[in-house]
Protein backbone atom coordinates (compact mmCIF):
# COMPACT_ATOMS: atom_id res chain seq x y z
CA UNK A 1 0.00 0.00 0.00
CA UNK A 2 2.86 2.41 0.64
CA UNK A 3 4.48 1.67 -2.70
CA UNK A 4 3.23 4.97 -4.13
CA UNK A 5 5.01 6.89 -1.34
CA UNK A 6 8.16 4.95 -2.14
CA UNK A 7 7.76 5.61 -5.86
CA UNK A 8 7.39 9.34 -5.17
CA UNK A 9 10.52 9.20 -3.02
CA UNK A 10 12.38 7.51 -5.89
CA UNK A 11 11.06 10.26 -8.17
CA UNK A 12 12.49 12.95 -5.87
CA UNK A 13 15.85 11.18 -5.76
CA UNK A 14 15.94 10.80 -9.55
CA UNK A 15 15.08 14.48 -10.01
CA UNK A 16 17.99 15.44 -7.77
CA UNK A 17 20.37 13.19 -9.72
CA UNK A 18 19.16 14.61 -13.04
CA UNK A 19 20.17 18.11 -11.97
CA UNK A 20 23.75 16.81 -11.84
CA UNK A 21 23.43 14.60 -14.94
CA UNK A 22 21.27 16.40 -17.51
CA UNK A 23 19.87 14.50 -20.47
CA UNK A 24 16.93 12.30 -21.36
CA UNK A 25 16.22 9.77 -18.66
CA UNK A 26 15.96 6.28 -20.13
CA UNK A 27 16.02 3.82 -17.23
CA UNK A 28 15.67 3.95 -13.47
CA UNK A 29 17.21 0.92 -11.74
CA UNK A 30 15.85 0.06 -8.32
CA UNK A 31 17.02 -2.81 -6.09
CA UNK A 32 14.29 -4.39 -3.97
CA UNK A 33 15.18 -6.76 -1.13
CA UNK A 34 13.01 -9.80 -0.57
CA UNK A 35 12.55 -8.64 3.05
CA UNK A 36 12.04 -4.97 2.19
CA UNK A 37 8.32 -5.10 2.87
CA UNK A 38 7.66 -4.04 -0.69
CA UNK A 39 5.58 -5.76 -3.33
CA UNK A 40 7.79 -5.43 -6.46
CA UNK A 41 4.97 -5.53 -9.01
CA UNK A 42 3.07 -2.84 -7.13
CA UNK A 43 6.20 -0.68 -6.86
CA UNK A 44 6.83 -1.17 -10.58
CA UNK A 45 3.28 -0.06 -11.35
CA UNK A 46 3.62 3.03 -9.15
CA UNK A 47 7.03 3.89 -10.61
CA UNK A 48 5.57 3.71 -14.11
CA UNK A 49 2.89 6.20 -13.03
CA UNK A 50 5.47 8.57 -11.52
CA UNK A 51 7.92 8.28 -14.43
CA UNK A 52 5.21 8.92 -17.02
CA UNK A 53 5.22 12.61 -16.13
CA UNK A 54 7.75 15.38 -16.72
CA UNK A 55 10.61 15.70 -16.07
CA UNK A 56 10.99 11.95 -16.45
CA UNK A 57 9.90 11.63 -20.10
CA UNK A 58 8.45 8.16 -19.74
CA UNK A 59 11.59 6.49 -18.48
CA UNK A 60 11.40 2.77 -17.73
CA UNK A 61 11.77 1.36 -14.25
CA UNK A 62 13.86 -1.79 -13.93
CA UNK A 63 13.51 -3.61 -10.62
CA UNK A 64 16.15 -6.06 -9.47
CA UNK A 65 15.35 -8.43 -6.64
CA UNK A 66 18.13 -8.77 -4.09
CA UNK A 67 18.42 -10.63 -0.78
CA UNK A 68 17.82 -8.83 2.52
CA UNK A 69 15.86 -5.69 3.31
CA UNK A 70 17.57 -3.32 0.86
CA UNK A 71 15.52 -0.81 -1.05
CA UNK A 72 17.66 1.53 -3.07
CA UNK A 73 17.91 3.57 -6.21
CA UNK A 74 20.75 1.69 -7.89
CA UNK A 75 21.42 3.47 -11.15
CA UNK A 76 20.06 5.72 -13.87
CA UNK A 77 20.57 5.45 -17.59
CA UNK A 78 20.62 8.88 -19.20
CA UNK A 79 20.93 9.77 -22.86
CA UNK A 80 23.02 12.92 -22.81
CA UNK A 81 22.85 13.39 -26.60
CA UNK A 82 26.60 13.16 -27.01
CA UNK A 83 28.05 10.59 -29.40
CA UNK A 84 29.46 7.38 -27.98
CA UNK A 85 33.16 7.35 -27.33
Amino acid sequence: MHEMSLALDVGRMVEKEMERHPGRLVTVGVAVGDNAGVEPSSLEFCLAAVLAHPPFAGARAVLTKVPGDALRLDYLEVDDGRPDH
Partner: protein
Amino acid sequence: MAVRTIEVREKVMAMNNELAAVVRQRLAEAGVVAFNLVSSPGSGKTTLLERTLDELGEELGIAVVTGDVQTQNDADRLARRTTRLVQAVVTGGACHLDARQVLSALDAIDLQRTRLLFVENVGNLVCPASWDLGEEAKVVLFSVTEGEDKPLKYPKMFREARYAVLNKMDLLPHVPFDLDSAVAAARSVNPDLTFFFTSALHGEGLTTWFDFLRSRIRQTAPV
Protein backbone atom coordinates in the same frame (compact mmCIF):
# COMPACT_ATOMS: atom_id res chain seq x y z
CA MET B 1 22.81 6.33 -28.78
CA ALA B 2 24.85 7.91 -26.03
CA VAL B 3 23.26 6.36 -23.01
CA ARG B 4 25.37 6.60 -19.90
CA THR B 5 24.83 4.63 -16.74
CA ILE B 6 25.03 6.63 -13.54
CA GLU B 7 25.62 4.68 -10.35
CA VAL B 8 23.51 6.04 -7.52
CA ARG B 9 23.12 3.28 -4.90
CA GLU B 10 21.20 5.49 -2.52
CA LYS B 11 18.64 4.16 -0.06
CA VAL B 12 15.01 4.93 -0.79
CA MET B 13 13.35 6.56 2.20
CA ALA B 14 16.59 8.38 2.98
CA MET B 15 14.52 11.49 3.60
CA ASN B 16 12.31 9.68 6.12
CA ASN B 17 15.36 8.22 7.80
CA GLU B 18 17.01 11.64 8.05
CA LEU B 19 13.90 13.05 9.70
CA ALA B 20 13.72 10.02 12.01
CA ALA B 21 17.28 10.79 13.08
CA VAL B 22 16.21 14.35 13.92
CA VAL B 23 13.29 13.00 15.98
CA ARG B 24 15.63 10.59 17.77
CA GLN B 25 18.11 13.36 18.53
CA ARG B 26 15.44 15.70 19.90
CA LEU B 27 14.03 12.96 22.10
CA ALA B 28 17.48 11.97 23.37
CA GLU B 29 18.32 15.58 24.26
CA ALA B 30 15.11 15.85 26.25
CA GLY B 31 15.60 12.41 27.87
CA VAL B 32 12.38 11.05 26.36
CA VAL B 33 11.92 7.35 25.63
CA ALA B 34 9.63 6.72 22.66
CA PHE B 35 7.78 3.55 21.72
CA ASN B 36 6.02 3.00 18.42
CA LEU B 37 2.91 0.86 18.98
CA VAL B 38 2.00 -1.21 15.94
CA SER B 39 -0.66 -3.84 15.36
CA SER B 40 -3.52 -4.83 13.14
CA PRO B 41 -6.73 -2.85 13.72
CA GLY B 42 -8.54 -3.91 16.88
CA SER B 43 -5.71 -5.54 18.82
CA GLY B 44 -6.12 -3.13 21.71
CA LYS B 45 -3.49 -0.42 21.24
CA THR B 46 -5.81 2.34 22.39
CA THR B 47 -7.14 0.37 25.35
CA LEU B 48 -3.59 -0.49 26.43
CA LEU B 49 -2.71 3.20 26.22
CA GLU B 50 -5.83 4.19 28.18
CA ARG B 51 -4.83 1.87 31.01
CA THR B 52 -1.22 3.00 30.82
CA LEU B 53 -2.24 6.67 31.01
CA ASP B 54 -4.53 5.90 33.98
CA GLU B 55 -1.69 4.24 35.86
CA LEU B 56 1.41 6.13 34.74
CA GLY B 57 0.31 9.21 32.81
CA GLU B 58 1.35 11.69 35.47
CA GLU B 59 4.10 9.62 37.08
CA LEU B 60 6.03 9.13 33.83
CA GLY B 61 4.95 12.30 32.00
CA ILE B 62 3.44 10.39 29.13
CA ALA B 63 2.69 12.11 25.82
CA VAL B 64 0.86 10.44 22.97
CA VAL B 65 0.73 10.83 19.21
CA THR B 66 -2.01 8.84 17.48
CA GLY B 67 -2.26 7.99 13.82
CA ASP B 68 -5.45 7.02 12.03
CA VAL B 69 -6.53 6.96 8.43
CA GLN B 70 -9.70 8.84 9.35
CA THR B 71 -11.29 10.21 12.56
CA GLN B 72 -9.67 11.39 15.77
CA ASN B 73 -11.58 8.80 17.80
CA ASP B 74 -8.48 7.29 19.40
CA ALA B 75 -7.05 10.70 20.30
CA ASP B 76 -10.42 11.70 21.81
CA ARG B 77 -10.54 8.52 23.89
CA LEU B 78 -7.00 9.05 25.16
CA ALA B 79 -7.55 12.76 25.82
CA ARG B 80 -10.10 11.75 28.45
CA ARG B 81 -7.33 9.93 30.37
CA THR B 82 -4.73 12.69 30.49
CA THR B 83 -4.41 16.41 31.05
CA ARG B 84 -1.79 16.49 28.29
CA LEU B 85 -2.54 17.33 24.70
CA VAL B 86 -2.89 14.19 22.57
CA GLN B 87 -1.56 14.80 19.08
CA ALA B 88 -3.78 13.26 16.42
CA VAL B 89 -2.39 12.65 12.96
CA VAL B 90 -5.12 11.88 10.42
CA THR B 91 -3.29 10.41 7.47
CA GLY B 92 -6.20 10.83 5.06
CA GLY B 93 -5.58 7.50 3.39
CA ALA B 94 -1.94 6.71 4.08
CA CYS B 95 -1.44 3.32 5.70
CA HIS B 96 1.34 4.34 8.12
CA LEU B 97 2.84 7.28 9.96
CA ASP B 98 6.12 8.72 8.73
CA ALA B 99 8.88 10.58 10.54
CA ARG B 100 7.83 13.94 9.12
CA GLN B 101 4.43 13.64 10.81
CA VAL B 102 5.99 12.68 14.13
CA LEU B 103 8.48 15.54 13.89
CA SER B 104 5.62 18.02 13.37
CA ALA B 105 3.72 16.50 16.29
CA LEU B 106 6.78 16.97 18.52
CA ASP B 107 6.50 20.74 17.99
CA ALA B 108 3.22 20.70 19.91
CA ILE B 109 4.50 18.53 22.77
CA ASP B 110 6.20 19.97 25.82
CA LEU B 111 9.19 17.62 25.82
CA GLN B 112 10.54 19.06 29.06
CA ARG B 113 7.46 17.67 30.83
CA THR B 114 7.67 14.37 28.99
CA ARG B 115 9.61 11.25 29.92
CA LEU B 116 7.76 8.73 27.80
CA LEU B 117 6.24 9.16 24.34
CA PHE B 118 3.90 6.65 22.74
CA VAL B 119 3.20 6.79 19.04
CA GLU B 120 0.08 4.79 18.27
CA ASN B 121 0.57 3.94 14.64
CA VAL B 122 -2.12 3.27 12.04
CA GLY B 123 -3.60 -0.21 12.57
CA ASN B 124 -1.74 -2.21 9.94
CA LEU B 125 0.76 -5.05 10.31
CA VAL B 126 2.44 -4.36 6.97
CA CYS B 127 3.45 -0.82 6.10
CA PRO B 128 4.39 0.68 9.51
CA ALA B 129 7.15 -1.95 9.74
CA SER B 130 9.09 -0.14 7.03
CA TRP B 131 9.01 3.37 8.51
CA ASP B 132 11.42 4.49 11.19
CA LEU B 133 9.74 7.19 13.26
CA GLY B 134 12.72 7.92 15.48
CA GLU B 135 11.44 5.63 18.21
CA GLU B 136 13.57 3.66 20.62
CA ALA B 137 11.67 0.50 19.77
CA LYS B 138 8.59 -0.83 18.10
CA VAL B 139 6.10 -2.63 20.32
CA VAL B 140 3.93 -5.01 18.32
CA LEU B 141 0.52 -5.97 19.72
CA PHE B 142 -1.54 -8.91 18.66
CA SER B 143 -4.42 -10.61 20.36
CA VAL B 144 -5.73 -14.09 20.99
CA THR B 145 -8.68 -13.48 18.70
CA GLU B 146 -6.42 -12.98 15.70
CA GLY B 147 -4.82 -16.38 15.21
CA GLU B 148 -1.46 -17.63 16.35
CA ASP B 149 0.13 -17.47 12.92
CA LYS B 150 0.19 -13.66 12.70
CA PRO B 151 3.99 -13.53 13.24
CA LEU B 152 4.49 -15.93 10.33
CA LYS B 153 2.12 -13.99 8.08
CA TYR B 154 3.68 -10.61 8.92
CA PRO B 155 7.30 -11.49 9.72
CA LYS B 156 8.79 -8.09 8.96
CA MET B 157 6.73 -6.42 11.66
CA PHE B 158 7.70 -9.00 14.26
CA ARG B 159 11.31 -8.84 13.15
CA GLU B 160 11.39 -5.05 13.47
CA ALA B 161 9.79 -5.05 16.94
CA ARG B 162 11.74 -5.41 20.17
CA TYR B 163 8.67 -6.07 22.34
CA ALA B 164 5.47 -8.02 21.75
CA VAL B 165 2.25 -7.62 23.71
CA LEU B 166 -0.18 -10.51 23.39
CA ASN B 167 -3.47 -8.95 24.40
CA LYS B 168 -7.04 -10.07 25.21
CA MET B 169 -5.67 -12.91 27.33
CA ASP B 170 -9.00 -12.94 29.22
CA LEU B 171 -10.56 -14.42 26.07
CA LEU B 172 -8.08 -17.29 25.84
CA PRO B 173 -10.46 -19.90 27.38
CA HIS B 174 -13.09 -19.01 24.78
CA VAL B 175 -11.11 -19.08 21.53
CA PRO B 176 -9.13 -21.77 19.72
CA PHE B 177 -5.81 -20.02 20.14
CA ASP B 178 -2.63 -22.00 20.79
CA LEU B 179 -0.54 -19.77 23.03
CA ASP B 180 2.65 -21.85 22.76
CA SER B 181 2.43 -21.89 18.96
CA ALA B 182 1.95 -18.12 18.87
CA VAL B 183 5.03 -17.50 21.01
CA ALA B 184 7.04 -20.06 19.04
CA ALA B 185 5.96 -18.44 15.76
CA ALA B 186 7.01 -15.00 16.97
CA ARG B 187 10.34 -16.28 18.31
CA SER B 188 11.00 -18.12 15.05
CA VAL B 189 11.09 -14.78 13.22
CA ASN B 190 12.63 -12.82 16.09
CA PRO B 191 14.29 -14.82 18.88
CA ASP B 192 15.03 -11.64 20.85
CA LEU B 193 11.40 -10.54 21.31
CA THR B 194 10.40 -9.74 24.88
CA PHE B 195 6.79 -10.76 25.53
CA PHE B 196 4.04 -9.28 27.68
CA PHE B 197 0.77 -11.13 28.16
CA THR B 198 -2.07 -8.77 28.94
CA SER B 199 -5.74 -8.12 29.08
CA ALA B 200 -5.81 -4.37 28.62
CA LEU B 201 -9.56 -4.40 29.22
CA HIS B 202 -9.53 -6.31 32.52
CA GLY B 203 -6.02 -5.59 33.75
CA GLU B 204 -4.42 -9.04 33.64
CA GLY B 205 -0.66 -8.78 33.13
CA LEU B 206 -0.59 -5.00 33.16
CA THR B 207 1.52 -4.80 36.32
CA THR B 208 4.42 -6.39 34.45
CA TRP B 209 3.95 -3.93 31.59
CA PHE B 210 3.84 -0.96 33.98
CA ASP B 211 6.92 -2.18 35.88
CA PHE B 212 8.79 -2.50 32.60
CA LEU B 213 7.91 1.09 31.62
CA ARG B 214 8.88 2.46 35.05
CA SER B 215 12.17 0.64 34.98
CA ARG B 216 12.92 1.74 31.40
CA ILE B 217 12.27 5.39 32.30
CA ARG B 218 14.43 5.21 35.43
CA GLN B 219 17.40 4.30 33.21
CA THR B 220 17.07 7.41 31.05
CA ALA B 221 18.16 10.93 31.81
CA PRO B 222 18.49 13.89 29.42
CA VAL B 223 21.89 14.04 27.66
